[in-house]
């Protein structure tokens, strides 16, 4: 599966609906601290950016794991954890630069985004279009098109 979560940070207004539906969907708790997607905020400047597991090909969390439970799934290419073996040491949570891991304090284990088996709820519920579920190649192509349109404004002033 080549689709990943694409984040359009400029469109996020910090509503936090993604955090609530994520936590509800996999932990059955209406508690944003259990969410796999997290909003980083600067309230003064009204800046809000969603961050989530980037599904790195060579994950830093995997090297940091003290129980070697983090691997790449051969079929989906996603970063997966053997949750039964996780002892909740939180070394991975400390290592990830994108705040991609979340400590589930109820189970005492660390989890990360698994793209909801191919139909991510956060994308469905984001009211501002800040989250997109698409292929990386597609996302880059879309940006290139936008770029191209900007550069041609002089030639085609109508757009």
């Amino acid at each position, binding site marked *: 599966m080549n689709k990943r979560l694409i984040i359009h940070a400029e469109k996020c207004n910090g509503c936090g609906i993604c955090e609530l539906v994520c936590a509800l969907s996999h932990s059955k708790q209406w508690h944003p601290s259990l969410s796999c997607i997290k909003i980083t905020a600067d309230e003064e400047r009204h800046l809000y950016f969603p961050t989530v597991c980037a599904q790195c*090909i060579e994950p830093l969390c995997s090297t940091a794991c003290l129980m070697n439970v983090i691997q790449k799934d051969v079929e989906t290419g996603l970063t997966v954890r053997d949750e039964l073996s996780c002892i909740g040491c939180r070394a991975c949570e400390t290592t990830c630069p994108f705040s991609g891991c979340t400590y589930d304090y109820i189970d005492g284990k660390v989890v990360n985004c698994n793209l909801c088996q191919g139909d991510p709820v956060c994308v469905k519920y984001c009211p501002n279009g800040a989250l997109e579920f698409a292929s990386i190649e597609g996302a*880059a192509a879309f940006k290139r098109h*936008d*770029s191209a349109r900007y550069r041609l404004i002089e030639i085609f002033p109508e757009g």
Partner: protein
Amino acid sequence: MNNVIFIDYHKCVGCGTCEMICSMVHEGICSSLLSRIRIVRDQVNGYNVPITCALCEKAPCINICPVKAINKDSGTGAITIQDSKCIGCRQCVQACPFGHMNFNFNKGVAFKCDLCEGDPQCVKFCWTNAINYIPVELAIGTKRFEVASRIVEYENA
């Protein structure tokens, strides 16, 4: 000051030779998906726009990389990726404002224009001279002249 890639969009006919030569030189096969320079084609309105690295002086891709795999080459000014350091997080793909940064799922690393170590091949093979490798002052000057010419044309019309 370094040379930059300067593209004259009026001259691009969308032939795709630059994509073929770029992918051939870097990956050994001709495939536009593996080319660093990519042409955005709009068949309806009839425009072709090659997009390549803007060589930002303060490139967001360099900042966003969490392992410093992306750096500015002090010689050519090119922004290059060290494959051995890349962890495949794809954040650079999201950071590039122009959509230039791409990702090779087979190798698990990001890839982009590296100015072919100072001798960009796309420039050599572009038969309409749409792609140029010139000093940045000349690029700015050319653009200025273009705009000025159009103003003069408009005034005289």
